[in-house]
């Protein structure tokens, strides 16, 4: 079955890296995955978005339409990217960075960046906290596969902190 995700925020928050790790984890489980991205010309601060499609069938057109899950890490991203969510889709928000949550029935609010700062020590880990949230909410990819994909992708000296961030995100939703 085809599942479509959109991870959005601003440049520097790491949403593209989170999407790559998720797609890598899906591929490690033998699924087909396509990851694409769009971002502005700025190195930091511009709008940033990455999309992941996971399917047992081959994937050609790489754009997500009517996503099943949208993560928004800024107010701007939330306003822009939740609108075409599928009716039974889920909107995941960074609670502090999206003060005005859009009206959407299935919304999950997690203080993602705050958890990264207070529990792991740096906002830098917020994308991995978000990935933990996504892992739990979507159940699309085995959590162990995601752990391995994180360990594979991040700098070796940061693996322990990233594992902590991932677990904190995973545990932040019921």
């Amino acid at each position: 079955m085809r599942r479509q995700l959109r991870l959005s925020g601003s440049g520097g928050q790491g949403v593209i890296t989170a999407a790559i790790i998720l797609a890598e984890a899906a591929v490690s489980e033998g699924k087909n995955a396509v990851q694409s991205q769009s971002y502005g010309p700025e190195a930091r601060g511009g709008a940033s978005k990455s999309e992941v499609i996971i399917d047992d069938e081959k994937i050609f057109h790489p754009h997500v339409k009517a996503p099943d899950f949208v993560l928004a890490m800024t107010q701007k991203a939330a306003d822009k990217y939740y609108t075409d969510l599928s009716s039974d889709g889920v909107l995941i928000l960074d609670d502090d960075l999206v003060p005005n949550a859009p009206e959407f029935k299935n919304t999950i609010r997690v203080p993602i960046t705050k958890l990264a700062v207070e529990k792991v020590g740096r906002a830098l880990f917020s994308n991995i906290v978000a990935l933990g949230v996504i892992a739990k909410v979507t159940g699309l990819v085995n959590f162990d596969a995601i752990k391995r994909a994180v360990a594979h992708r991040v700098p070796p000296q940061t693996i322990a902190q990233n594992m902590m961030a991932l677990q904190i995100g995973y545990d932040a939703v019921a």
Partner: protein
Amino acid sequence: MSASLMQGNEAVAEGALAAGVRFFGGYPITPSTEIAETMAKLLPKVGGTFIQMEDEIASMGVILGASLAGKKVLTASSGPGISLKQELIGYAAEAEIPAVIVNVQRVGPSTGQPTAPSQGDVMQARWGTHGDHSIIALSPWSVRESFNLTVKAVNLAEKYRTPVILLMDEIVGHLRENVELPTAEELEIFPRRTPKKSRAEGYQPYEPDEDLVPNVANFGEGYRIHVTGLIHDETGFPVGSPKVTENLIRRIHEKISLADDIIEVEEILMDDAEFAVVAFGGTARTAYEAVKACREKGLKVGFLRLVTIFPFADKIIYELAGKVKGIVMAELNFGQLVGEVRRAANGQCPVKLCAKYDMTIFEPEEIIASIEELINEVNGI
């Protein structure tokens, strides 16, 4: 080898290495930079050389020098950088220097939209440099094919001693998907051509072989070589003669136009097709979805994907136009390659342009709408 997630640009670098490229000269530019980054990581491990030059012109110059010294070479850039490389691409065509130039297309003209996809350089690939020259351009639609076509580009550059453009786009260059790359044993690699005669036997560096391609010796291997952008005879030295001029210009065209291993297309669902969609590169992914959707609606639509862009598949398009009632050409620009399709179709059927140039990629619905309009036009509705 099990499947791994890989980016199109990374696959280009992997393909280049597998094809024997051991020299990369470049200058970073979005959306091509990952090719340079990956080459910088991989080349030193196999004894190759990565060099970041001061600009795109120097990057082109340095790979031509390295090629003349015997290395298989690659450079990568995007629109603004590719424009700067044009003079030396012509030099490579004239002096018959093997080189592969990757263009990961973004929106132009000029600096345009640096991070957004486009196929707006397709005619530049053919005619970007001045003068009568031939060129080879290939355009992949997937990460796996980015690998394959890089290998093919390097092979063709070596075999025909010509610049080859690998015409990527941001869609495929930045796309990550699962791939399984072939092993070295599965690949056919064309080695650098070598002289068949010694100096004593009358070796001339630009004397054409039977396939019209000269076996120019590498610098530093005991032969006397002169390389120039001026029209030259078999010695490699300039000659102001009409006959030599005519022969050289004809030969650099015919060595490519007479070859039978350059043009490649993929036909899908064409057997009973009454209409056809033609597309290439990243747009082909969406066009294929559109064709599948039309089939589900009961419309007899087929798909022809251009893998080789230049030399253009004249004969294949001519035959296609004789078989179907109409063709939709989908391309992510204001309308460029549609001119080639119309020329090759030669009026046998209508060729409808489906163009897009708003920095976003096609959605399948847009191409489906174009197909349905064409069907209605042909049926007089």
